[in-house]
C-alpha cells in the first residue's frame, strides 16, 4: 500500500480488513496466449471473487485480433470458468465483465498504442483509476523492445506524466545469458524505473517458499544449526514428469539450465542460504538474496560437477513415452539438455565447504520440488556399529510441491529388546483442504504487483548474478557440443542419468529420492 495510514478507517492493528489495491487498470499484452488464459484471467477472477480488487478496476486486453470487448469477454469468461480456484459466481462475473475491455492492434502499430494511451486517460475519468496502471507483458521476449518503445513514445510508462503509478510485469526468461539479460534489464529499467519493474518467478509466490522464511527466521530451533558446522550438504530438486509438451520451439534453444536452474532453483537456493534480512520489506530481502547469489561460485571442474542429460524413450507412470529427440519439432540430433545437475558453492563463512547440489529434469518419475538440508552424521556413536547400520544423516526437507510441508528425518530406536536405530520421518503437512484454500501463486503475485509490494520479485541484479553463475556452465556445454559430445541419455521415468549419480558418489554422497 502506498499510503498505509492516510485512510483513517485502516489501521495496522485491524487485520480483518483485506489489503485492497488502489483503483487501477491491468493491461495485458498477449492476452490471447496460453499463460493469460490458464493463469492470469483465472487469478484476476479469483481476486475479484475474494473481494480483493478495488472498486475501480479495469482489465484491458491487448492482442492482434479483430475483436470487440464482447469477444474478449467471452474468452475471459471461459478461461475464468475453467481455471478459477474459487467457485464461479455469475454475480461476480457480471461485475467484472463491466470493466473488461479489449483493444486490437499489433505491437508495431503506432495508432493502436495511441488509442491505448488515450483509453487509459479516459479511464481516469470514467473509472477513477487515477492514472494507475500495471502492464503485463505476456509476450515473447523478442517483442519486448517494440512494446517498450511504444510505451515510452506514448508516455504510458511515466509515473509523473500519468499522475499515478505505472508498473510493468515481466515473465521469464529474463534473457538467455548475462549480456542479453543486461540488455533487457537496461531497456525495461530505462522505460520504467527499476522499482516499478516486477519480474515474476511464480515459485516465489508459493506458500511453502514464504514458509521457508518463517521456518528459518521466526524460530530459534533451526537457525543455530543452519551453517557448515552442522549442515553437510543441501540438495534442491525440481522434477517434472511431463515432457516439453508443445513448447519444442522454445525449449530447443533454452534447455533445462536456462529454463529452471537459472531462475527457480537459484532463487530457492538464495532463500535457503541467505542471512537474516533486517526487515521483511522488498529491499532487505532482495539485498540478502543478492549477497548469496553474488557469493555463488560455478564449479571449478565443470566436467565433473555440471552434468547434463536428455531423456530417451521409456515408460513413465505406466505409459510409453517418446525420446526427447523424437518429440515433434525437435531435431533428431538435438543436444539440448532436459536434465541438469550442478554442484555450487556459496563462498561465505556460513556456508564454506557445504556443497549445494541442484538438479532439475523433465520426464522424471514424479513431479516434485523440494529443498533437502542434510546434516552431518554424529562424529561418535555410543552404539555398536551393527546397531546403527540403518541410521542415515539427519535431514530437514522443505517440500515446495506437491504435499506442501516439512519433513524431519532422524534416528529412532526400533521397538524390541535389541538396541537398533533406524531413520524415521516426522511430517508436517498443511492438510489437504488447507492447500486448496491457499491462493494460487499468480493470484498472490498479481495482487502484490497492484499493491506495489515487490518482496517476492527478483531484482535485476539478482537475475544478472544468476546468469553469471549459469553462463560458464552453458559455455562448457557448448564446447562439449563442438567436441561432438552429446548430453548423457537417461530413460524417461528414471531419476536422471548415471553421470549425475556418479557426481555425488565422487563426493561420497547420494541423491535423496524425493
Amino acid at each position, binding site marked *: 500500500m502506498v499510503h498505509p495510514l492516510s485512510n483513517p478507517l485502516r489501521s495496522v492493528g485491524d487485520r480483518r480488513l483485506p489489503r*485492497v489495491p488502489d483503483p487501477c487498470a491491468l493491461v495485458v499484452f498477449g492476452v490471447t496466449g496460453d499463460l493469460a488464459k490458464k493463469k492470469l484471467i483465472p487469478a484476476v477472477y479469483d481476486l475479484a471473487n475474494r473481494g480483493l480488487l478495488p472498486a475501480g478496476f479495469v482489465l484491458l486486453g491487448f492482442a492482434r485480433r479483430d475483436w470487440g470487448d464482447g469477444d474478449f469477454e467471452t474468452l475471459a469468461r471461459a478461461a475464468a470458468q475453467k481455471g478459477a480456484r474459487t467457485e464461479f459466481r455469475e454475480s461476480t462475473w457480471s461485475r467484472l465483465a463491466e470493466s473488461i475491455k479489449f483493444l486490437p492492434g499489433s505491437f508495431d502499430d503506432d495508432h493502436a498504442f495511441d488509442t491505448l494511451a488515450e483509453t487509459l486517460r479516459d479511464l481516469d475519468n470514467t473509472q477513477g483509476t487515477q492514472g494507475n496502471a500495471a502492464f503485463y507483458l505476456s509476450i515473447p521476449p523478442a517483442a519486448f523492445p517494440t512494446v517498450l518503445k511504444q510505451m515510452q513514445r506514448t508516455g504510458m510508462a511515466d509515473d509523473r506524466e500519468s499522475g499515478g503509478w505505472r508498473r510493468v510485469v515481466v515473465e521469464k526468461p529474463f534473457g538467455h545469458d548475462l549480456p542479453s539479460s543486461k540488455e533487457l534489464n537496461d531497456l525495461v529499467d530505462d522505460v520504467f524505473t527499476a522499482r516499478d519493474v516486477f519480474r515474476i518467478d511464480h515459485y516465489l509466490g508459493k506458500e511453502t517458499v514464504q514458509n521457508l522464511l518463517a521456518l528459518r527466521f521466526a524460530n530459534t530451533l533451526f537457525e543455530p544449526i543452519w551453517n557448515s558446522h552442522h549442515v553437510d550438504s543441501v540438495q534442491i530438486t525440481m522434477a517434472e514428469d511431463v515432457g516439453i509438451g508443445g513448447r519444442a520451439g522454445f525449449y530447443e534453444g533454452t534447455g533445462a539450465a536456462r529454463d529452471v536452474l537459472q531462475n527457480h532453483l537459484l532463487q530457492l537456493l538464495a532463500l535457503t542460504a541467505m542471512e537474516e534480512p533486517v526487515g521483511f520489506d522488498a529491499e532487505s530481502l532482495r539485498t540478502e538474496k543478492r549477497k548469496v547469489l553474488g557469493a555463488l561460485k560455478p564449479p571449478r571442474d565443470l566436467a565433473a560437477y555440471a552434468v547434463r542429460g536428455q531423456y530417451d524413450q521409456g515408460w513413465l507412470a505406466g505409459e510409453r513415452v517418446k525420446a526427447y529427440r523424437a518429440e515433434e519439432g525437435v531435431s533428431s540430433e538435438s543436444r539440448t539438455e532436459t536434465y541438469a545437475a550442478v554442484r555450487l558453492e556459496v563462498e561465505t563463512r556460513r556456508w564454506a565447504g557445504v556443497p549445494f547440489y541442484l538438479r532439475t529434469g523433465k520426464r522424471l518419475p514424479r513431479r516434485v520440488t523440494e529443498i533437502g538440508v542434510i546434516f552431518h552424521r554424529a562424529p561418535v556413536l555410543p552404539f555398536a556399529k551393527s546397531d546403527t547400520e540403518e541410521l542415515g544423516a539427519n535431514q530437514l526437507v522443505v517440500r515446495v510441491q506437491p504435499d506442501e510441508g516439512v519433513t524431519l528425518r532422524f534416528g529412532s530406536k526400533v521397538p524390541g529388546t535389541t538396541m537398533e536405530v533406524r531413520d524415521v520421518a516426522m511430517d508436517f503437512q498443511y492438510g489437504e483442504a488447507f492447500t486448496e*484454500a491457499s491462493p494460487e501463486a499468480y493470484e498472490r503475485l498479481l495482487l502484490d504487483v497492484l499493491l506495489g509490494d515487490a518482496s517476492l520479485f527478483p531484482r535485476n541484479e539478482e537475475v544478472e548474478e544468476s546468469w553469471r553463475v549459469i553462463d560458464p556452465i552453458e559455455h562448457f556445454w557448448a564446447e562439449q557440443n563442438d567436441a561432438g559430445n552429446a548430453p548423457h541419455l537417461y530413460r524417461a521415468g528414471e531419476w536422471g542419468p548415471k553421470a549425475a549419480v556418479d557426481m555425488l558418489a565422487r563426493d561420497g554422497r547420494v541423491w535423496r529420492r524425493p
Partner: protein
Amino acid sequence: MTTLWDTTGTAVVKALGAERRKAGSVSSGLALTLVVVVEEGRVEEAEHAATRAAAEHPCRLIIVVRRRPDAPEARLDAEVLIGGRLGPGEAAVLRMYGRLALHAESVVLPLLAPDAPVVTWWFGRPPQLIAHDPLGVLADRRVTDCSLADDPVAALQQRAVDYAPGDTDLDWTRATTWRALCAAAFDSIESPARAAVVTGEPSPSRALVAGWLRSCLDVEVTTQDSGTNGITEVRIELEEGEVRVSRSNGRTALLSRTGQPDRRMPLEPRELGDLLAEELRRLDADETYARALSVASGVGDLDQRPAHRTHVWHDPTEAADPDPALTVA
C-alpha cells in the same frame, strides 16, 4: 469412528488415541483446539461450520452438548472420529447430561491439544457472564454470537459489560464486509469526515459499525432504522462532498463518492463457516473490536481489562436468573 455410551472422560481420551493410531500416518499439524458449546438442535449446523473453518485452520474439534442439567443421573455419551464427516482433523462430540453439564471442563481439559491455544465458541444464546462457564474460562479466545440471543442489542451491551481481551462476537465478524467496503470507499480521500449515518435494522452489527466509524473518524455517528435485513447504507459526510456505500440488492454494494463515478462491489452473504474461519485467523485480542464495542456500548477502557477470568460458580437450577449458556433444553 468410535461411539461410546455412558462413558467416562478417560475412555474418550483413550478412544482418541486409538483412532489416531488407526488413522495411520497422523499428520499432526494442529494449530489450536476449538471447543464448540451448542445445543442439540444446532449440532449439525455447528459441525458443518467447524469443519469448514478447520479446513483453513487445522484444529482438534470438541463439540460439547449440554443436555438436561436437571436430570437426576450424570452421564456422558461421546463420538470420536478422525478424518470422517468432521473434516480431516480430529473431532470429539460430547453429550453431557445432568450435573456433569456444569463440570464440562472435567471431560474437556484432558482432551485439549497439548500447549495449543483454545478457542471456545458458543453457538447459541451467549452467556450472561463468560466466567460462569468453565469452558470459557479455560479458553484463550472466546467467540459469542449476539444474533442468537433473545434480545441481540441488549446482548451486545452485556458483552461490553463482561468484556475481557480475547473476546469477540460473530456480529463483529459479520460487519467485516461492510467495514471493508467503507474503508475501500474512503481510500484516497483527503477531505476529513464531518459526520456519518449508518442505516439498517437495529442489530449488534449496526451498532458495531457505527461504533467503529466513530472510534476511527472521531465524528458524530448516528444510526437510522430501516425495515430490511442487516445494514443497508453507510453515509459519511465530508468537508467536501460525501461517501456512500449502499446495498443495491442482496449481493452487490454501490460505492458513490462526490465527483467520481459510482462503482459496484461484491457483497456476498458469508457462510457461518467462513465467519468462524475469520475468527480463528487471529488468536490475540482484537483491539479494533474493543474500541468499537466500547463506543457502541458506552462502557469505557475495555482494553485495560485483565485478559484472564476466574470461574464464578453458577448453578442454573438454583439461580433466579439462570445463565442461558448453561441452561440448555
